[in-house]
């Protein structure tokens, strides 16, 4: 892109994220100084999804136990789980497909506010880049993504293989009920501890082995900006060391630890209370006051 061209994504990134930076810095500082107090912990076993609650101002930590286990996550606002959730489109627009410390998980339209902030990551990024290139990382979003049993059947011929789609559905059903789970037919998940690079041409993903990079006790942490339901899946690709068949993949438990500040919940981002309407209601109302650009004229 030439210097004169307006870089919409870059400009939006700068403008939108700036007001929320301080909450990231404060929570990260509290975590690094050991000033967070453990309030709950859950051990996630392989091949099973789990649903759990997070409260506004808490910090959630996902920690490798024994080996590097890929996890897929989906977050919904507890007070309206069918209407507002952490949205990979808004998050990628204001962050990246490969997210790192400081990035916010924004909710869907019309809410568009930070639901979580990624505050800490102990995985050795330098080593990832050294081994797998500049475009590699271990936290990412794909397109409506979470592995599915059908794609394993298409690829490996294995019927009803364990998948993140199965496990996330299980997790949502557990914490929010079947109606909510069915509403989120195929949630786009946020992945951690999965070494990938968008390094193919045309642009596509490569999945790399994880053992050489991630160690026992590595963790990622997120600050929670509202009361949430979370659904987690341990991906059946496990540590990605051997993906020649589903049966050969090795999976590991993961520790989920929930923290607060020493004196209670941490400070969180305010709700910007957007004025844009729900899309269906707006369409039904005849799109009152809809803003548009210009229509081109043939020369």
């Amino acid at each position, binding site marked *: 892109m030439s210097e004169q061209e307006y870089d919409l994504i870059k400009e939006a990134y700068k403008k939108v994220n700036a007001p929320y930076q301080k909450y990231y810095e404060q929570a990260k500082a509290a975590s690094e100084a050991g000033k967070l107090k453990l309030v709950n912990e859950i051990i996630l076993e392989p091949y099973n999804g789990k649903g759990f609650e997070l409260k506004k101002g808490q910090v959630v930590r996902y920690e490798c136990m024994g080996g590097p286990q890929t996890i897929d996550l989906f977050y919904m606002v507890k007070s309206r789980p069918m209407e507002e959730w952490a949205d990979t489109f808004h998050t990628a627009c204001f962050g990246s497909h490969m997210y790192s410390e400081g990035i916010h998980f924004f909710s869907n339209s019309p809410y568009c506010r930070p639901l979580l902030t990624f505050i800490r990551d102990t995985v050795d990024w330098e080593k990832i880049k050294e081994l797998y290139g500049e475009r590699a990382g271990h936290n990412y979003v794909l397109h409506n993504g979470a592995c599915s049993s059908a794609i394993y059947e298409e690829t490996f011929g294995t019927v009803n293989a364990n998948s993140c789609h199965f496990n996330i559905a299980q997790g949502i059903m557990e914490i929010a009920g079947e109606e909510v789970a069915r509403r989120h037919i195929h949630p786009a998940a946020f992945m951690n501890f999965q070494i990938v690079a968008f390094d193919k041409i045309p642009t596509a993903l490569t999945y790399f082995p994880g053992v050489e990079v991630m160690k026992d006790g590595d963790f990622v942490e997120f600050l929670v900006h509202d009361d949430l339901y979370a659904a987690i899946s341990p991906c059946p690709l496990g540590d990605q060391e051997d993906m020649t068949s589903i049966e*050969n993949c090795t999976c590991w438990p993961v520790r989920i630890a929930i923290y607060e500040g020493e004196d209670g919940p941490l400070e969180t981002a305010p709700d910007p209370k957007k004025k844009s309407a729900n899309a269906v209601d707006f369409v039904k109302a005849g*799109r009152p006051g809809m803003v548009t650009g210009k229509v081109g004229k043939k020369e």
Partner: protein
Amino acid sequence: MTKEFFDAGEEAKKKVNVRYHKYGEKARELSDAGKLKLVSEKVCQPFQGHWFNLDKGQVIRYEVLDGPQIIDTRYHVRSRPTEEWADTYHSTVMGAITPYEGMHYYSNTPFTRPLMTFIKDTVDGEKIREKHGSTGGHSFIYPVARCTSGIYELAYGLPNHNSCDLNFKQVMVEALGEERAKVFHSPAAFMHFQIVDFDKVPLNVTYAPNADFIKKGDYVELLAHDDVYVFISPCPLGDQNDTSDLEQCVNWPFKVEIYEGSDGPLETAPDPKLKTMDPFEFNKAGRPGMTVGKVGRKE
């Protein structure tokens, strides 16, 4: 240096796509030889959604008229529109995030079959890559992508700006009814005529002006493998030549044409009829016969 590993994504692509390539190749030959028969055509206006019934074996063409208008497209199986649609996750895993001639748009789990094949693209891809590098393109997929009014309010401060999300909801209300439009999550769209470059590190997209790359009469064509609804939104970013102010974005009409072979519908990919179950029913049934890998043991 990258150590030896099994490239699961690449192997899956090789193994699965080969089953379906011949249908796209045959359709492409007929298109190149001028042996497709026009069935219908329509000029579509900016700032509103459009929808079409596209039958199995037909080819849809999107054509640039007087200016290079970005379009977002979605495909839903007519017999079960809220259950099966062209899914960007499966399509990306089996293809790329910058769709190309020969790539298949696979449906979601548990169906996961080619619904569309991208057969022809007259836009000068070489010219795009000359300027923007190997990650440049004009057809692309983004996580849960279609622009939203919420994101425009967040980035530009304009509530209720026209957006692809609004336009898709409009056509969903028209084609599927209000109830289904309200409860159904909008899947991610497939974009055309939008110059992008996945050049940022960490990975993200740069939107570049269309002006120098897409010319009047350029088109893309896709073969339909089942009876589908086609939902289209002209993106309010228009020709993307100036995105510094949404009200300055210039939008253009575009043409949609539907073709068949001279003797009727073209040959299409067979339904692989996968046996993997719906995730909710499978979880409720206690996951009978679920396949898993191995659990790691800490040394």
